[in-house]
């Protein structure tokens, strides 16, 4: 399930926006109210808030406890046998095998996850929406070509290809040519734009059939005008909601790449790298926080976004069934 698509949410391309489907849906304002009152939304927003807070407060916490995210404190944090402590001594969640503060690193990990997730998903949104608009509206040969591209892109095994792509970034001395964060962003975006393209293409094809488009053509409106003023406003909400749906999947993508050792590399704190380190050293048996701190952080981040995006889809997405 590490591949990037959120297949539970590949949208159904039916059900145009025909206003409220049941007596309960009500107006936009009512839907907004219902969205913000739903306990799932509140819980999700609270979790996201917590993660954001952690990301912002990371440097502050580091300054207070006096441990930088990549600084090593073997004297304070490793026992005589070289095993890391699991707490105390100013190390809230203990230390890792190199004597680094697990708590501080976990907070910094939030920055990495959010940054890579948000940037890559946004790139995918922009590229995918553009491709989908063109493929769906122009149709014919353009559509076939673009669809064939999407098919081919889907046939690549994400992780295996990513493993090879990452070696591109290896300089002559085995160092990185550009910041690995950007490589990860590129790979994740490369493997997720297709879902936006499919979504938007399907919506465009459906909207194109509706008579208000015929009316616009009949009144002499040009292609660009129709795409920008008639179609785009109708697909954008769904695409943006899908952004929120895809975001947690992309955060998982980054973590998985890092876990396999081809994403963010130690000592930069990334949750995936931290878990890989816990696995490789096997030290989590003595210092469970090595595993649990990044695992729980990943969990609450993804859960938060999942909760909110599900609610968004349920309340606002014309392509969703509202269940």
């Amino acid at each position, binding site marked *: 399930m590490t591949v990037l698509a959120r297949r539970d949410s590949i949208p159904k391309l039916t059900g145009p926006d025909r206003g409220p489907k*049941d007596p309960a849906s009500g107006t936009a304002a009512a839907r907004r109210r219902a969205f913000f009152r739903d306990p799932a939304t509140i819980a999700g927003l609270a979790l996201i808030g917590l993660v954001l807070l952690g990301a912002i407060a990371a440097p502050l916490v580091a300054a207070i406890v006096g441990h930088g995210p990549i600084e090593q404190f073997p004297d304070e944090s490793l026992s005589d046998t070289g095993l890391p402590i699991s707490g105390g001594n100013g190390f809230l969640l203990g230390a890792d095998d190199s004597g680094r503060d697990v708590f501080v690193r976990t907070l910094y990990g939030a920055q990495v996850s959010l940054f890579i997730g948000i940037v890559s998903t946004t790139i995918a949104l922009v590229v995918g929406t553009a491709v989908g608009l063109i493929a769906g509206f122009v149709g014919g040969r353009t559509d076939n070509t673009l669809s064939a591209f999407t098919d081919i892109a889907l046939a690549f095994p994400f992780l295996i290809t990513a493993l090879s792509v990452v070696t591109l970034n290896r300089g002559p001395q085995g160092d990185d040519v550009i910041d690995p964060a950007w490589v990860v962003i590129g790979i994740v975006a490369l493997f997720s734009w297709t879902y936006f393209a499919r979504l938007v293409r399907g919506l465009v094809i459906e909207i194109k059939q509706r008579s208000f488009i015929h009316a616009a053509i009949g*009144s002499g409106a040009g292609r660009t005008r129709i795409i920008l003023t008639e179609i785009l406003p109708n697909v954008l909400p769904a695409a943006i909601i899908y952004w929120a749906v895809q975001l947690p999947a992309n955060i998982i993508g980054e973590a998985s790449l890092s876990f396999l050792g081809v994403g963010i590399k130690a000592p930069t704190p990334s949750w995936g790298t931290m878990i890989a380190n816990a696995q490789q050293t096997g030290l989590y048996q003595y210092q469970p926080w090595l595993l649990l701190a990044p695992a729980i952080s990943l969990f609450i981040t993804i859960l938060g976004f999942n909760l909110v995006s599900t609610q968004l889809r349920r309340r606002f997405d014309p392509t969703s069934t509202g269940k």
Partner: protein
Amino acid sequence: MPLFELDAFSVSFLDPDQPERHQTPARTVDSLSYAVDEGETLAIVGESGSGKSVSLLAATGLLNGDHRTEGAVRFRGHDLLAATPKQRRGILGKEIGFVFQDPQSNLHPFKPVGRQIEEVIAEHTALKPAARRARVLELLGEVGIQDAAQKAQHYPGHLSGGQRQRVMIAIAIALNPALIIADEPTTALDVSVQAGILGLLGRLQREHGTAIVFVSHDLAVVSRIADAIVVLKDGRLVESGPRDEVALAPREPYTRALLEASRARIRPRVRPIRATDAGPAEAEPKPLLGVRGLTKHYRRGSRVTPAVTGLDFTVGAGEIVGIVGESGSGKSTVGKVIAGLQFADSGEILLDGHAYPTKVSTQVPHLPAEVRRSVQLVFQDPYASLNPRRTVFQSIAAPLEANGWSKSSMRERVAEVARRTVVGDELLNRYPVALSGGQKQRVAIARALALGPRLVVADEPLAALDVTTQVEIIELILSLQQSLHTAFLFISHDLGVVAAIAQRVIVLGPNGVEEIGETEQVFTAPRSAYTRTLLDAIPRLDEAEVSTR
């Protein structure tokens, strides 16, 4: 003891996001009472939203969505609402059969129809498979399906609309129920098929003595078969009584309005239009629109199906011409070609002296700007015809915007057409969600008029509307024709509607043009046998009333 009875029965929908005890929702069905005796036919009439279907579905436990019921529903004296799910299942399908509106959506798409009939027998009887299958074939024969053994293997998608509805009826009568609930059973069907289905229901009732509750929006349809009629409006009972009382001598103004609406649609247009017109249409040397040999085929992969072949007709300036045909007759294709949305394969189309290009292509033809401006479109489905993300003002202004009008002249023009189409100022800032079906259709007409076209192609503009709203829109179109001298090409499957509005009628049959003529002539002395069957199939309130005209 009546067979089936609603007693002060109310239904209200609940908001699934709120706890039930905090809600006091409006009643969709409000203290409704009526009863059917054994062997009797009761018609329930009302417009959409009157609660006629909701009341029956809720009464039998088939209503989807969170709702609350009050009052009592009795079948043979037993309260259905108090019954356990198991008891209710024992009655449904066995003692009460159902026929729903759209047989396409009401049959399972992935099961052969024979199995769908067999299922209900299997559930309620201990018959062996062989006996069940024999019974299925017998039923298919009884509802008038030829070739039963073969048809039983078909999926619903491979049957015609009429055949599918016959299958639904076979399911309903499979176990000789005491009551059949028929919810708009003919609304989704072509007129020529409607008559057959109504006849079938009537025959089955005579033969088996089944009681029928027949739900319809059309007083004319039900007056053919009902013993008694109940009229509903906004969930409340307006009037009820024996058929002759309600259908021929209604006491309530609302029933009279329904009746009037039903009649208006089948009265051929006899207004003296020419007197107020600029001049008789056919007297003009050149018609506004001249079509000769219009031909268009649809290509899907390697399959080519003709939509229209060799159609000739004209529309004079300021004239209303109707095109009538059943589904598949190619009438919508004609509309799209005339409106400039599709190429014709061949043929000559002249609008105001400008020739349309013809080509075998799926693309949108490129027409000169003045041709685009002089022909505009109004569509069937008012939901899909307005962009949900634009306000009414923006929608009406869209064609002006596309043609580069300035902001101030745009505002003036929108106000002008809004006034003419009776779109109130208070609607201009609303989004389509907040409009009724009739209002949406007015806005769509306003948008079509914005550029001051000489011809408006209206493709089934009334099909999605209630009868009373239909009358309003018909009157609006007639008044626009008078005041603006705009010509209309009015496309419909409904001969009655066309009769009420068009000066001349083109009847399209499955094999092309059947008849073209003045409305009165087509209605009173149809030349083609096909037109005659269409005319005969129109449900009438009273045969005598029509023939005297």
